[in-house]
């Protein structure tokens, strides 16, 4: 019997799981995919918002600010890349300047510091590639960027190092409510029992809540399509550049990523089923909008495009509360933007305020919140690398030539928490295959390493779990 089961391995579930391990609790996470960070935490903008967007008094406003303040220390402890690059909201016509002041004033009411409306000249000095139509901007110095799946993986890995269990490919199909416990059943016949369920199932959180007996959580999906440019474009812009928001939302942004790429997107398309297909209309829209925001957008450096589905609640605010209908169920649902920013603050609140109301929390004095980055090796100087290579020659064998990832690093992410068991899982942890050749050279080698380390035949290695096999059998 677990004390708490977290349903859903996105960034929200991840930060909650980690927070739970600070206490003497038996906790587990169930995730329907083969790896964590496979839903919206895999494909979003990776922005640490300053906190001027959300209306004052909302949960979004509250957790955005708190999360923004926590993020630098949180990421540092977990060895996750975070850059405080600052955001700018650009007015592309004089009548949008008023909106900038509205945002500034709203931000200040929310408690955001470092907001400043800047003139065109200052803007141009910050971002030389801004469109000539720009006539001013709101600069938010506390805006930042982080890699959403890196943050998710690191939080879960650290939680597991501190005793949490992870069940992947665990698609919940039924939740049976006992007197003071739940039985959480998976589609492949596994069962786990728990005193508390934390529902952080993203797009599936409406369904999970309903299975547990609460049909009041209504979640819809909005698809966002993105285009990613090669690191060759690094330096094209340094701030995260937004358009002035309209009633339709924040629109397309242009931003550096912590890995040195440039990200364009997202679109915002209502979807009935969580489909992550890109569309030619969507990608064209991203390109055209980016071209209206900045000049000389280096589209020729495109290396990939992708889409994510963001879950939102019909209340248009975060749902973070005990279920009114089912005791022991905590819903953390509808966590759309600024959910990534808010995650550490939401996790703290959920555990300290909501879980504590159901279970006594006793501090886990063995908790160690530090985690070595999956990228630590590449950051070492040559002497330190050579010491490692002398111990383990696999650290001298480059597998991914674009990102210069070694076999030793790949083996390490297959073995450490949370274990990478697919090509995409290795890619999300190390960026092997994420460079300009997009895995053309290294995929067969990564597949062979996975087969060897997991003790499975090569034909059973998958791209991203389930039936996503790379090959269909031997030639002869």
């Amino acid at each position, binding site marked *: 019997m677990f004390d708490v089961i977290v349903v859903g391995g996105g960034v929200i579930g991840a930060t909650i799981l980690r927070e739970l391990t600070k206490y003497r609790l038996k906790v587990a996470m169930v995730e329907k995919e083969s790896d964590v960070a496979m839903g919206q935490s895999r494909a979003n903008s990776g922005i640490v918002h300053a906190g001027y967007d959300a209306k004052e008094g909302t949960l979004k406003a509250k957790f955005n600010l708190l999360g923004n303040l926590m993020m630098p220390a949180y990421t540092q402890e977990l060895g996750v890349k975070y850059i405080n690059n600052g955001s700018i909201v650009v007015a592309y016509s004089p009548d949008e300047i008023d909106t900038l002041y509205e945002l500034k004033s709203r931000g200040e009411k929310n408690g955001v510091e470092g907001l400043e409306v800047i003139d065109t000249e200052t803007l141009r000095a910050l971002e030389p590639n801004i469109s000539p139509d720009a006539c001013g901007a709101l600069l938010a110095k506390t805006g930042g960027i982080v890699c959403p799946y890196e943050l998710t993986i690191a939080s879960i890995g650290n939680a597991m190092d501190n005793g949490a269990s992870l069940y992947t490919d665990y698609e919940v199909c039924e939740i049976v409510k006992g007197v003071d416990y739940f039985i959480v059943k998976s589609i492949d016949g596994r069962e786990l029992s728990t005193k508390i369920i934390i529902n952080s199932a993203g797009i599936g959180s409406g369904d999970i809540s309903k299975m547990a007996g609460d049909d009041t959580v209504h979640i819809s999906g909005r698809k966002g399509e993105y285009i990613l440019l090669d690191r060759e474009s690094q330096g094209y812009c340094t701030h995260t550049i937004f358009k002035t928001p309209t009633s339709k939302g924040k629109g397309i942004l242009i931003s550096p990523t912590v890995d040195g790429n440039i990200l364009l997107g997202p679109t915002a398309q209502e979807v009935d089923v969580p489909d992550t*297909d890109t569309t030619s209309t969507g990608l064209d829209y991203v390109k055209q909008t980016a071209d209206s925001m900045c000049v000389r957008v280096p589209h020729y450096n495109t290396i990939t*495009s992708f889409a994510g589905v963001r879950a939102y609640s019909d209340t248009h605010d975060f749902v973070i509360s005990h279920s009114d209908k089912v005791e022991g169920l905590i819903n953390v649902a509808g966590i759309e933007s600024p959910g990534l920013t808010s995650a550490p603050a939401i996790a703290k609140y959920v555990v300290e305020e909501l879980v504590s109301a159901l279970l006594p929390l006793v501090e886990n004095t063995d908790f160690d919140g530090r985690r070595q980055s999956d990228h630590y090796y590449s950051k070492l100087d040559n002497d330190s*690398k*050579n010491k490692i290579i002398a111990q383990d020659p696999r650290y*001298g064998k480059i597998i991914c030539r674009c990102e210069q990832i070694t076999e030793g690093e790949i083996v390490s992410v297959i073995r450490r928490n949370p274990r990478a068991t697919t090509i995409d899982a290795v890619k999300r942890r190390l960026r092997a295959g994420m460079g300009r050749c997009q895995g053309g050279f290294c*995929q067969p080698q990564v597949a062979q390493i996975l087969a060897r380390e997991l003790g499975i035949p*090569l034909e059973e290695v*998958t791209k991203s*779990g389930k039936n996503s096999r790379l090959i269909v059998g031997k030639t002869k």
Partner: protein
Amino acid sequence: MKNYDIIIIGGGPAGLAAAISAYDNGSRDILILEREPVLGGILNQCIHNGFGLTRFKESLTGPEYAYRFVEEVRSRGIEYMCDTTVLEVSTDKQVTAINSTKGVFSLSAKAIILAMGCRERSRGALNIAGARPAGIYSAGTAQKYVNILGQMPGKRVVILGSGDIGLIMARRMTLEGAKVLAVCEIMPHSSGLKRNIVQCLDDYGIPLYLSHTIVKIEGKDRVSGVYIAQVDEKRRPIEGTEKYFECDTVLFSVGLIPENELSKGAGVSLSPATKGPIVYDDRETSVSGIFACGNVLHVHDLVDFVSEEAEIAGVSASNYAMGKGADRRVVSTTCGNNVSYVLPQMLDTNASGMVKLYFRVNKVLPNPTIRLTSNGEDIVVKKKKIAVPGEMESIVLTPAKLQSISGDVVVSVEE
């Protein structure tokens, strides 16, 4: 730090030929660095025949062609290190590399030859809409799975792009039991060699759809199908022309790009047209003592020409390392009508031997006249039956012709 006369980066066809020619020119202190476990480069997975017709007057497979050069390297006792990846080349000709036995280490050289080859353009670069399931490969990756690992990437295949590797893989997958349903080419003409259309597609009844592209890929875990559509003259899909193919695999053969990350790091100037270094006719780059040859310089259709070019670079690097500098009288070469690039970009009109200029046309030109002019004066004029973008053209300049060049050179091709 160990010093060499010549370090060659890459042990594929270009690196091997460069090493042999440098040796035969008198250099002895040569090192080849190769990232794969064996020499030979991409030829090892190109098991089809058709290599070496120009050079050896016979049709060899890739491994056979490579073997001949590897044997030459071995018989000369030229030093090479496999399983060794070069991380950085500096302007002052220091090379930083990594392998399992030495760790990260640095070497220096009097001359460096860049021979890293090229990579395939990926699906991502094309922004093709749809899902991102398993079963999407570049043709070269599929070739590695089939020919080296003996594994089948799929059973029902649609190929985008009529580049030679795509055509070769259409036949290869068919021979190994797969059904290749279609090859789509966005251009109105094939980008591969005509003979490959005949012997790889026609022989097996595989349809080639010219002026077509893939507009959508479907599939959840694994590819389940693709939509292709005809494109207009601006290469935009025409609505209503979509065709659906049920398939489990999509191969991309949409072009090769010289792999110049190391060249850039060394401060070598690159050409936007070839995406490779800008070179003199002796294949020296903009950085003194750094030479380049093969597909890292410009993408060749035939390995025979890679070897030929590498021999030029090998001799030049050898002369450079021995302190035999050339006193150049340089003119630049530029593209005239219907020409997409000319290589070398800089020509030494004092060169003592024959100089071959390579170029590509940007469209199919029947009965073309090829014209090389300088200051409006014809230096070379020749007729051809046909010129196509998929096949590299060349002009040979004798020392006498070179001497007659008075200024920058323009290569043009007229119908």
